[in-house]
């Protein structure tokens, strides 16, 4: 191999490399590495926040689901209560109606009894009156002649003799 003057290339390589390195470090590597780093960081942050948002979304969905479930349960409970109330009301009113009916029937019965009794007593009075009138009239007619009066007394006496 052919060797040339060593000092030339060693001197220039050292000089150029050192200056080149200092310039590149200041004007290229620092900004480039900084930009790459900050972009990586921002990508990482974005990914993390996306993950967080996803998780939050999941939580939100779960909460929504839960609320919906609760609402559904509440609705069901309310419907059930309403149904029960309705049934209770119906049952109550039925019972009321039955009681009222019974009471009215009772009243009616009492009234009817009272009326019947009144009517009976009136009927009795009328029957007695009528009977008295009829008896009076009959007696008047019977006792209009002496024979018939005598006969009757005899007959009556005949009925009661052996007592």
């Amino acid at each position, binding site marked *: 191999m052919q060797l040339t003057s060593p000092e030339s290339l060693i001197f220039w390589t050292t000089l150029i490399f050192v200056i080149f390195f200092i310039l590149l470090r200041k004007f290229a*590597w620092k900004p480039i590495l900084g930009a790459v780093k900050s972009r990586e960081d921002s990508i990482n942050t974005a990914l993390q926040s996306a993950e967080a948002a996803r998780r939050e979304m999941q939580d939100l969905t779960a909460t929504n689901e839960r609320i919906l479930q609760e609402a559904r349960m509440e609705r069901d409970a309310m419907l059930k209560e309403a149904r029960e109330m309705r049934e209770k009301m119906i049952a109550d009113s039925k019972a009321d109606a039955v009681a009222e009916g019974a009471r009215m029937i009772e009243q009616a019965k009492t009234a009817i009894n009272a009326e019947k009794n009144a009517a009976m007593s009136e009927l009795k009075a009328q029957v007695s009156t009528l009977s008295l009138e009829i008896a009076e009239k009959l007696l008047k007619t019977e006792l209009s002649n002496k024979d018939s009066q005598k006969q009757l007394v005899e007959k009556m006496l005949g009925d009661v003799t052996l007592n």
Partner: protein
Amino acid sequence: MSKKSLQFLLAAFVACLPLVGFANTQVDSTVVTTEAVAEPHVDGAHVKEPFNVSELINSHIADSHDFHVADWNGHPISFALPIILWTNSGLEIFSSEQFHHDNTGEHVVSVNGQEFVRNNEIIFYKDKYDTLTAEQKKDGAFEFDARPLNFSITKNVFSMFMSAILMFFLFFAVARSYKKNPNAPKGIAGFLEPLITFVRDDIARPNIGEKQYAKYMPYLLTIFFFIWINNLIGLIPFFPFSSNLTGNIYFTFVLAFITFIVTTLSGNKDYWGHIFNTPGVPVWLAPIMIPVEVIGMLTKPFALMIRLFANITAGHIIILSLISLIFIFETVAVSPISGAFVLFMSVLEMLVAALQAYVFTLLSALFIGQAVAEHDHH
């Protein structure tokens, strides 16, 4: 076209294999003497020119003072670069044009009363050059007495400047695009950001640790992209690219040395404790352990230096050798085969370019990680 012709090409290549082997052994030992130009040159200067493969490859992978663009009519066309010399009497700056492509030490350049010659891309003082032996003249890189200190903007330095400016604007644009666009990256930033995050998430974080990695990110990113881009620039075979910067051992030495310094300066108590008082090792072994550990400190960056240098240089040598086959065989018929192999190797080298940048960065991160690691289990 397609399957049949591909099979034919493969068969032809396999048939040529023994010849290639033969040619290679020849190249290794001697110079293949062939006619570079089929017809004698008009002025008769280039009648016969030996084609020397190792010289061609060496000159392509080595650094040089001119940026060779092309040859035209046997004359090289070069992009002249400044030559900066620290001589015995001060700084001298002149254009490499003044050497008139001479690399044999014959053409003398006079600048401000001093005379210089250039041999094999080493610039000497003319008077001292004449006293050197032929061997010293040929390989004079370390003949510091005979030559001025050379701080020239060579081909590799030029290429490094270019790549640094290019990369600076590239990454500056990326940084600016982040300021303007806070959304997902697009355009050039979209292309480079995965690489940046790759260095961060697959190199720095696992090897240095979550607590400390951020401090070393600028260094790791800089070496990763610096090596990668310069590897790629070296693969582009035309001006103003094609320099073999990352395959130059001086360059890899500097990078490995910087990693060594960073590692050493980051070393915490545990790191030095492992070197000078390895836990669990008896004290009387310290005279052996300490030198071994200190050598270990040095071999790690040394391996970094050699690995990058050898991988990139080997790739360049293979590609150049494959192209040289055409000139060794002196026939255009070889060109489809050698072209196909060059294409294959070039694609492979693109992979190697990225891989070696990755390996260098990874091992640097690993060494730093070892230096800053906290061993609380001892």
